[in-house]
């Protein structure tokens, strides 16, 4: 389980990439990404998640996004990405 929190934006993109790279290397058959603590996400963040998913898939594994925060849900809806990631989106009550 990798926990990403705070801003998933260009300002932290390099750091997040290293984090995801490390996780991919450590868990070749896949891992969960917890997005519950994400307060903001931009194109750079979306791009990183897509790249991470593809990286995991190329190793034969997959990643699962869990606990989408409101910020993440909004952007996924804007870009119609839910199907792309294929993870259940929990709509906040």
């Amino acid at each position, binding site marked *: 389980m990798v926990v990403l929190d705070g801003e998933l934006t*260009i300002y932290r993109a*390099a750091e997040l*990439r290293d984090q995801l790279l490390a996780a991919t290397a450590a868990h070749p058959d896949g891992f969960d990404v917890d997005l519950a603590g994400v307060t903001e996400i*931009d*194109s*750079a963040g979306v*791009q*990183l998640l897509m*790249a991470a998913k593809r990286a995991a898939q190329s190793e034969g594994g997959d990643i699962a996004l869990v606990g989408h925060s409101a910020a993440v849900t909004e952007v996924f809806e804007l*870009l119609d990405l839910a199907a792309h990631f294929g993870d259940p989106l929990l709509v906040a009550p």
Partner: protein
Amino acid sequence: MNMDEALQTFIAEARELLEEMETALLEVRQADDPADMINAIFRAAHTIKGSAGLFGLDFIVSFAHVAESVLDRVRDGGVQLDDAVVTLLLACCDHIGSLVEATAAGQTEADAEMTARAAPLLAQLHRHLGDDAHAPEHAPANASALVAAEPILQRMPHDGNARSADHWHISLRFGTQVLRNGMDPLSFLRYLGKLGRITAITTLADALPPLTELDPECCHLGFEIAFKSSADKAAIEGAFEFVLDDCAVRILPPDSRVSAYIELIESQGESQPGGPARLGEILVRCGTLTQHELDDALARQAQGDAEPLGQMLVSQGSVQPPVVAAALTRQKQIKEGKATENQSIRVDADKLDRLIDLVGELITASATASMAGRTVQSVALHEAHSTLASLVQEVRDSALQLRMVKIGATFSRFQRVVHDVSREIGKDIALSISGEDTELDKTVVEKIADPLTHLVRNSMDHGIEPVALRAERGKPARGTVTLNAYHDSGSVVIEVGDDGGGLNRERILAKAIERGLIEAGRHLSDAEIYGLVFEPGFSTAEQVTNLSGRGVGMDVVKRNISALRGAVSIDSEAGVGTTVTVRLPLTLAIINGFQVGVGSSVFVLPLETVEECVEFNAETGHDYAQLRGQVLPFIRLRDLFKVPGAPGARQSIVVVRQGAQRFGLIVDRLLGEAQTVIKPLARMFAHLQGISGSSILGSGDVALILDVPALMARAGQAEHSRANAPAPATSLASMSN
């Protein structure tokens, strides 16, 4: 761009477009191939509507929209372009013009008067659209009515050959630097959400490198968006304004042809992994294309058909041939339009005026410099001055050239005048134009339009006979008014002619005697009699119409033309027609002058009017001389202007020509050519006869510029008043008597 500037550009363009629209409307009925012209008219209306929308000028948009819809029907043959429709569209053109002018005056929405004026037009337009439902009671003076009228605007019939996707399709490929430049693609999409509704979106990450190679600060995303909105293309494009340099944006309007989508697939698909086929699928997913349409087009393309895409789709039956032809010509026209556009720039008229003023000062200064230089016996300085003088002259010529405009634009405006007036007075009259490439000063062009309008109306009203009379005289039923222009010895000549009945010599004479303009029993030449119609309060029209015949006009025409230092004359042949000839100076600012001295005064003549200079043999008591066997009337400038002092021993005659007439001026000294900057005379000298302006010499002295037409008239009179003048045997004398 500054919004105000942009608005000014819009207004200027709209004016031009309306002018084009009017010209095309006037010619379309005579055109061999009206399709091009109808397209031009439609484009003009469409462009004005589009740009007005950009500035939120809804009152223009809503009106132009209805006009455009009717034009669209005209284009597809649904509405016959007959006389009534042309007249209606001309009226619409005028109305749009008045709306644009209102915008120029700072108005941003329609006032009650405009709405009232628009109502009858809109009612008629809607009648042509076949829906009386939108008749004037809820005249679309606002955008909501525009939406109501939307279904009328069908670009193409919805059959199997046309696309029926009713949403915009937006294709975005963001550049890699977007994020680094501080812009987030997401914010553009959010903004788009304000303009309409994103009905489908596909995020493309095909360009995304593997995580190991990914530079996380570069953007690799693209989007294909189906977008439902009533905004226009400019507004949608505006959403991406800040990122246009950094992003490939392609926007396809609703109901675009299949070929447009195919083209999109080809162009955007090239640059992306997966190729065109993948992009095609995305379009299908967005609901923009149906799978069937895509398969068909791609399969054809894959067969390696060398034929161009447009042709391919036609043979395939996807697009109607005329549509493709229209699209191709439009592309060509746009290209050509751009080519000419690049060759000219818009310059503020004030800046040009300032330049001309400066050139004027330069000429005076250079004359002063070379005069001062003469006192210094230096060959080098003298040479430098003569080089300078010739350069200054070239600068002057090119500066003046900048102000020269072709008279064609002014002439073609009269198509409208003739069209309207001939309807009004119930005569069938055509306008024939020649010499439209003749150039003259912009100021002159502006000021000549009114007098010309009067002359043209006059020709139509009084010149051209009623149809019955024309038939009786064996003339074609359709009368012709001609406008012609050409250059002649430093002036521009404009002729307004008609093939009507000609002036009635006897009636003019009778009227002139009745009004006390001339004495009965005096013998007058034809030219003199015809010239009487330019006298104040002179009119021979038996019926007073709304246009002319009220006795005001021709004298005003003459006064306006004289104010431009021009002259007007009239020539007529009974039963054949009348021609009014207006002679104008090329420019109002700077002329090539010929300086002459009388006593200590210097006078300037326009060089073009000077024919020759001969020695004067003082034969006292006569005001005429013999020039190669011909009688030459002359004026002694010394007497005319009461210059003090006795005449010198060797006086000269300067032979001056104006039109076909010549006369002489007796002067003391000939000073030669010099460039002359014309300074208008102060108001208190305006009544002076024979002087048209003043100029400052290199020495700082003032020289008066002689008004040749006025002097000519005086020379004629002087000779006429001679009781024992020799019999006017020569043509020269008979013309000037």
